[in-house]
């Protein structure tokens, strides 16, 4: 009953949003036939979608196996929290969540009192049209309210890998990021129709908000992969990971550019272009995940018609945006000149780098697709490709990051800048020499990258000290600078963490007898034994390992191998002992016939904790900017 209601509300959403879509299409042809309040329509669309989503959630919690999705992705024995997160642990539900977020952002935008009514109307028209495309995709190709016939007595269970708190919150965060860019797209498209620069102030908070969510979403995803998959790594250059990084890179370029655009009223067209590009790349990411065209760990069993539909959707949204942009560009040529050695110049450099990196990753990600279509060869692009391109690019990138914040607007001089930061330069050189001296036994590349990361953190610190000195003269600390300092240090931490956990990691795989000790780094890992533990819907074999350093017991790690009752699937739960200097990471393998020996895989991953701290720094930098831009809107 509830599920039928859910479908009715979904259909109502389809009908209502089609009105906006029709209006936009008719207007594109030069007519102006209907007129109605987009605000009221947006609110109705949001509440209908919300009701529909609540209906689906209720059916999941109620284990209503008459629904196909629930019978395939849930189970009555499932803990309540995973019955709930199971709503988006499958294709249909996750697209409904996507729609919900999209309509919610539309709703938020419509309730803003700072936007002029005509502009609001224009933005919502585009946003509702986007909703129409998504909701028709749901209704026609991935209806979560599809009945299963005959209804099974028991569900097949949620994929055990997804029964994890990290993964439960990863998709919503990622979607908030991806979908946030839909409103950025709508604002930019509407701004081209309205022809005003006023939109930049409206756009800014949305850019920061989406960027924060996307950053957290990617961070949560790699954190989950790190502890759940038992591979000891956090980033695998998997196509789907790359797909989430692409909009992140262009959004990072966007949030630097929008600062100039807002301040100097130049690069406005470029801002619009980046906004549109970012949303297109977000859609591309969804296409790659949901169509299964690429060989990826994320690829789920899929229906090819969905791929075709998403491709059409992607093409129409891209063409509409690009078409509008080209027309707009012709009418609004900007005449400006940017000096390289100036804040604007530095930010432009940042844009060039961000886009080059994005382009490289895009090529590496979709090349296998082209090759299989055009040459019928099956290939994949390995991690070495991405590393070989990114490593050299990092050098100018980091230099720019260090110099950029100390460069003045309009025009500056390199010698003057260097003179201004001579104390910093001296300490950076000193730091580099000391780091080199301490770590000279490590691989050269790792030392260089740790120095680069450290230099960014030091220069951010230096900037902070400069502000503090200013504060004594009773000048208010600019929030923008705090945001930049936090985010840049975040990148520094990220570089160090990534270097440590890739180049410097140590790995030991062995057959370990109960009672045997393995030494790794300066730890002794003693295998105590394995015991059986019963979970709510699984049976676990829990290994116990004593971690001893300098004859002192630090902790006992308990990696698990879980057997899920329903799907007969096994998952590995790694156990991690985290410290600033590095993570001790243990994954339990299989038992040998003699029952006293187990395969164990032990890693020491230096500085991995810094990655997660780096992500938190990035996100909090974003938060500062977000709040700042919200306040400045008025």
């Amino acid at each position, binding site marked *: 009953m509830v599920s039928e209601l859910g479908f009715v509300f979904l259909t109502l959403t389809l009908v209502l949003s089609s009105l906006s879509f029709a209006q936009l299409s008719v207007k594109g042809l030069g007519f102006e036939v209907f007129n109605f309040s987009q605000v009221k329509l947006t609110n109705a669309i949001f509440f209908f979608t919300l009701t529909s989503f609540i209906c689906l959630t209720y059916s999941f919690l109620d284990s209503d196996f008459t629904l196909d999705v629930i019978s395939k992705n849930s189970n009555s024995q499932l803990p309540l929290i995973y019955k709930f997160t199971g709503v988006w642990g499958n294709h249909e539900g996750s697209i409904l969540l996507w729609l919900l977020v999209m309509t919610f952002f539309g709703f938020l935008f419509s309730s803003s009192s700072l936007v002029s009514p005509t502009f609001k109307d224009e933005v919502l028209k585009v946003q509702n049209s986007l909703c129409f495309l998504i909701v028709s995709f749901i209704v026609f190709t991935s209806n979560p309210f599809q009945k299963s016939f005959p209804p099974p007595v028991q569900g097949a269970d949620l*994929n055990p890998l997804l029964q994890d708190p990290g993964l439960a919150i990863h998709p919503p965060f990622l979607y908030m990021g991806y979908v946030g860019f839909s409103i950025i797209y709508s604002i930019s498209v509407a701004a081209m129709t309205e022809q005003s620069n006023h939109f930049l102030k409206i756009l800014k908070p949305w850019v920061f908000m989406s960027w924060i969510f996307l950053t957290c979403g990617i961070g949560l995803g790699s954190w989950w992969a790190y502890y759940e998959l038992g591979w000891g790594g956090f980033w695998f250059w998997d196509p789907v990971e790359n797909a989430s990084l692409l909009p992140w890179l262009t959004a990072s370029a966007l949030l630097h550019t929008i600062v100039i655009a807002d301040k100097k009223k130049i690069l406005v067209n470029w801002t619009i272009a980046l906004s549109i590009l970012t949303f297109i790349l977000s859609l591309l990411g969804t296409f790659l995940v949901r169509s299964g065209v690429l060989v990826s760990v994320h*690829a789920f069993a899929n229906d090819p018609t969905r791929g075709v539909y998403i491709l059409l959707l992607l093409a129409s949204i891209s063409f509409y945006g690009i078409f509008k942009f080209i027309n707009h560009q012709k009418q609004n040529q900007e005449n400006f000149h940017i000096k390289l050695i100036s804040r604007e110049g530095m930010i432009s450099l940042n844009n060039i780098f961000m886009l080059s990196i994005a382009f490289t990753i895009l090529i590496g990600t979709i090349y296998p697709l082209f090759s299989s279509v055009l040459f019928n060869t*099956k290939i994949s692009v*390995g991690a*070495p490709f991405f590393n070989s391109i990114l490593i050299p690019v990092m050098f100018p990138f980091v230099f720019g990051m260090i110099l950029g914040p100390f460069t003045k607007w309009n025009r500056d001089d390199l010698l003057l800048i260097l003179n201004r930061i001579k104390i910093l330069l001296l300490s950076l050189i000193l730091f580099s020499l000391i780091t080199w001296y301490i770590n000279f036994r490590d691989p050269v590349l790792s030392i260089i990258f740790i120095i680069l990361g450290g230099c960014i953190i030091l220069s951010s610190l230096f900037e902070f000290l400069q502000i503090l000195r200013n504060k004594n003269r009773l000048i208010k600390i600019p929030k923008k600078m705090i945001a930049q300092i936090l985010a840049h240090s975040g990148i520094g931490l990220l570089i160090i963490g990534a270097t440590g956990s890739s180049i410097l990691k140590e790995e030991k*795989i062995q057959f370990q007898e109960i009672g045997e000790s393995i030494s790794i780094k300066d730890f002794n890992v003693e295998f105590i034994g394995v015991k059986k533990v019963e979970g709510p819907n699984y049976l676990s074999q829990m290994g116990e390992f004593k971690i001893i350093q300098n004859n002192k017991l630090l902790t006992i790690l308990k990696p698990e191998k879980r057997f899920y009752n329903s799907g007969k699937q*096994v998952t590995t739960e790694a156990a991690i002992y985290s410290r600033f200097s590095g993570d001790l990471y243990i994954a339990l*393998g299989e038992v040998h016939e003699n029952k006293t*020996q187990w*395969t164990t895989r032990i890693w020491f991953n230096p500085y991995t904790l810094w990655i997660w701290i780096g992500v938190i720094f990035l996100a909090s930098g974003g938060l500062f900017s977000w709040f700042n831009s919200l306040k400045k809107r008025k």
Partner: protein
Amino acid sequence: MKPKNKRLLTLIAFVTMTSLGFTILLVSLRENLIFFYSPTEVFEKTFDSNKKIRVGGMVKKKSVEKKIKEIDGRKLEEITFIITDYNKEILILYVGILPDLFKEGQGVVVEGMIKNPGVFNATNVLAKHDENYMPPEIKDIKTIKENSNGI
């Protein structure tokens, strides 16, 4: 310098930089491609023993064997299994922990090198998220199998 010349210079610099970047990109891409083959194709071609390739197929039933081996004073588990496309078979050698979703009679993709003829040294056995998921490469093999009534 005249503004016109300056603009020309910028343009030339821009074009050179972009084309240089693009060349580096393509060269690096060529070097780092990993090709995918079926066991039949592996027998038809010769391979550089230092170049990584991927081989995919079904894990032959009852072919998985585990032996304890001592390398550098450490006891390791050496796993051997056979991958088949129902035409040719290839022996895989792997040291490490198999992914959770590895099962006899199911599809798998391995990455590694052919050191000696007929033996594939796998450095990586690829994991998947979903038990129902089949890499497209293996799907083709499965259709072949179904068409020929499971030889």
